């Protein structure tokens, strides 16, 4: 029997270790698995690489991890989201590394990681500072840069409903990076508002099929 449900946040994040690369879904706080992210704190993990669209809002979730100095590096498109003071302070103090990636390229690199693509050419950032140092070539008359996939040790997700097979359904714009990140984490963990009976999620409208998900916890 397949049962990916776990009884607690602690069980949901068990095994996540220092130095790991962790995909954190969400756009700002919407769709951000705040409780899962904060459950990393009692594990004592450090030197994490966080891949997320932003670099933490206020003092919860990613921001809390950063404030507690558990994060070595952030890979994101836009650290200056609403209330980024925790990241800003650490960044200015030189205590945290930033890899800035255009948002669509960030999404596509994560998607490539989950889909087994070895790299892709995109016009985005070609000829700009964010394209510097990347292999470049002209394709059909336009300069492209080669971008590498992002694969992570862990993907932390937040969904509206899930079932014991790991199928997930999101709500409105909280979907955002969640379905993109799920396939790219060697371990994919989802916090859900509500657990659904197997077979009650509409098979035509499952946003993340269970094959991409390892653990589901209500939080």
């Amino acid at each position, binding site marked *: 029997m397949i049962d990916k449900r776990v009884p607690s946040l602690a069980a949901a994040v068990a095994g996540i270790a220092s130095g790991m690369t962790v995909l954190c879904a969400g756009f*700002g706080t919407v769709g951000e698995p705040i409780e899962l992210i904060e459950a990393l704190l009692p594990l004592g993990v450090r030197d994490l690489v966080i891949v997320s669209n932003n670099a933490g809002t206020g003092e919860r979730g990613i921001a809390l991890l950063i404030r507690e100095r558990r994060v070595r590096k952030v890979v994101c*498109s836009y650290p200056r989201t609403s209330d980024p003071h925790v990241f800003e302070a650490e960044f200015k103090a030189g205590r945290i590394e930033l890899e*800035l990636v*255009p948002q*669509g390229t960030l*999404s*596509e690199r994560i998607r490539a990681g989950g889909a087994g693509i070895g790299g892709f050419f995109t016009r*985005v950032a070609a000829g700009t500072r*964010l394209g510097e140092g990347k292999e470049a070539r002209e394709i059909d008359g336009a300069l492209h840069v080669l971008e590498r996939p992002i694969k992570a040790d862990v993907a932390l997700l937040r969904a509206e409903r899930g079932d014991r097979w790991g199928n997930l359904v999101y709500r409105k714009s909280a979907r955002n990076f969640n379905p*993109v990140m799920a396939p790219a984490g060697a371990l994919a963990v989802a916090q859900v508002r509500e657990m659904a009976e197997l077979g009650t999620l509409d098979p035509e409208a499952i946003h993340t099929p269970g094959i991409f998900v390892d653990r589901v916890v209500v939080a």
Partner: protein
Amino acid sequence: MKPLTRRQMAWRAAQDIVDGAYVNLGIGMPTLVSDYLPAGREIVVHSENGILGMGGAPRPGAEDPDLINAGKGLTTLLAGGAFFHHNDAFAMIRGGHLDLSIMGAFEVSQDGDLANWTTDDPAFAPGVGGAMDLAVGAKEVRALMEHTTKDGAPRIRRHCVYPLTARACVKRVYTNLAVLDITAEGVVVREMIEALDLASLQDVTEPKLILANDWKRFSAPAL
């Protein structure tokens, strides 16, 4: 001469969006454009975080915390709208499916180069968001910005001083003084606000301006 307010600039940019257009409105001033979409036109607003058919701000009491725009403000969905994931949202952008992207800018060059992601201000960590994707991917890019910096320096430049977002992408610029087109011949003045003359506009613009034969005066409603 009275320069346009930010809301008037947004209003002016909104008037040019045609019926049936798929548009992305950048964060900051461009987000205000959605408040002034002309009545009678069906315009589909796209958001990077997975929305097509975005409406205006929600009525009090109808706010939904799971429904935000790219600027992270609360928003709504029109009938016919759809939600999708981030990667599909950027396939729409990068794949050339958006008719129009209106973005804020620090500078636009006479060749249409756009600089709108960083001023290298050491006081802030840089952020790029979806600006580079939009600049490269949308069928047409228009910039919406004050004509000059706070210090009065021109923002329409021969060459951008700030780091580029993308080369040769901006086709039209809406400022608080004028509407200008970036063309192969140079920067063409299409419209100027009341009581502004070309010489005065040239004074606050770096590249040589060309006055369109059919240029006109324009004014915006009080906003």
